[in-house]
């Protein structure tokens, strides 16, 4: 699993640093690197909001480091897109914080629910959704047969009619990758 993200330090204030990668800014803690002095311009590996290791600028691209663990990177990119949407919802509704984020994911979307859950804290670090719970609803693949009209569940790599075994089927569920619901706490005091 590639659960650390290489980022470049752009600013340091005590134990806190501002880091940047691919245009995304994050506030991270340098608490774990007390034995290893870092400076602006250094590259570090970030894991759930903490810089955990100093690395050379070239290292992230080396085979055997992050590039071979790519599938969780792809879920990370999806989580970053998700967090952008959640932040927008939070802003539009004057949220003080996000409590939970519910997404629905089908096997044919190409996204692994487990990897999404692992990538979420990295993408959410430093945002209004940082402590939110991610709820992933997995939608099973369902097909409708063009020949016998039956509807049945199917495996992602065997899209056949469960009734007559024909491959002339239409997928009716299992492709989705949706943000469904955002539960927020607003800044308002409850009215009694």
């Amino acid at each position, binding site marked *: 699993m590639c659960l650390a993200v*290489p980022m470049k330090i752009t600013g340091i204030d005590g134990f806190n640093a501002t880091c940047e990668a*691919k245009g995304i800014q994050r506030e991270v803690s340098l608490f774990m690197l007390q034995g290893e002095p870092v400076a602006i311009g250094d590259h570090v590996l970030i894991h759930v909001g903490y810089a955990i290791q100093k690395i050379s600028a070239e290292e*992230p*691209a080396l*085979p055997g*480091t*992050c*590039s071979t663990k*790519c*599938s969780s*990177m*792809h879920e990370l*990119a*999806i989580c970053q*897109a*998700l967090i*952008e*949407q959640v932040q927008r*919802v939070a802003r539009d*509704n004057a*949220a*003080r*914080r996000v*409590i939970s984020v519910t*997404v629905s994911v089908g*096997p*044919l*979307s*190409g*996204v692994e629910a487990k990897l999404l859950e692992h990538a979420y804290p990295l993408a959410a670090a430093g945002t209004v959704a940082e*402590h939110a719970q991610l709820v992933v609803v997995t939608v099973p693949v369902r097909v409708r047969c063009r020949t016998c009209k039956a509807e049945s569940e199917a495996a*992602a*790599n*065997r*899209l*056949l009619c469960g009734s007559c075994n024909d*491959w002339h*089927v239409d*997928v009716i569920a299992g492709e989705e*990758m*949706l*943000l*469904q*619901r*955002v*539960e*927020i*706490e*607003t*800044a*308002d*005091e*409850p009215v009694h």
Partner: protein
Amino acid sequence: MCRDCGCSLGPAAARAPFAAQPATKGRIESIEVITAILDENDRVATHNRAHFDGHGVLAVNLMSSPGSGKTSLLEATIKALQGELKVAVIEGDLATENDAARIRACGVPAIQITTGNACHLDAQMVHDALDDLPLDGLDVLFVENVGNLVCPASFDLGVHRNLTLLSVPEGDDKPAKYPVMFRGADLALITKVDLLPHIEEFSVGRARDSLREVGFRGDIIELTRRGGPGFEAWLGWLRSEVAARRAAAA
């Protein structure tokens, strides 16, 4: 933080600064959203497609494992279509300019996107590459995606056609193992068929069945870049797609 193993649990007092949950005071609201998570990528993809359409350019995305012959196929295709179609290529790789250099050596413009550690191209990367690539007068723009059978499947680039290559040495069960990638393709190319006599484990029939079972509904062409009827069929497919694009733009 726990002093024994570094986990985030441990004595409550020590945990407090790490689990900085504000005490609940405000009102709790549940907001129904229901949007595609990648809608921003899809928006940029739609923009890319409009840009290609405006120039009457056919945009084709090539996806496969590393080493199944994407760049070799492009080299052979560019040579075969020299003087007939104007081609340009966007190359996606984790590192190196090697592939773009190979394409430029064939005399066509190539833009290399080095993704660093990202495992796929997305619509924004293609959009940014277009800044350096004039589309005027082009017939076909190939986008050679990062060699990977998993991640590129989730990201619409704004191309007109998606191609997936399956090379004989990889084995005929690749579609069953990577269903999302093969299902999303418009055309499947079984490459390196000149190796079939040496790799008896690979059955073209099983590969075709596997493609059908994952829901692939497009044409399947068996070819080698060294020429022959399969390669001609591929060029024919490309010509008819270019003609359709021109007709749509006119």
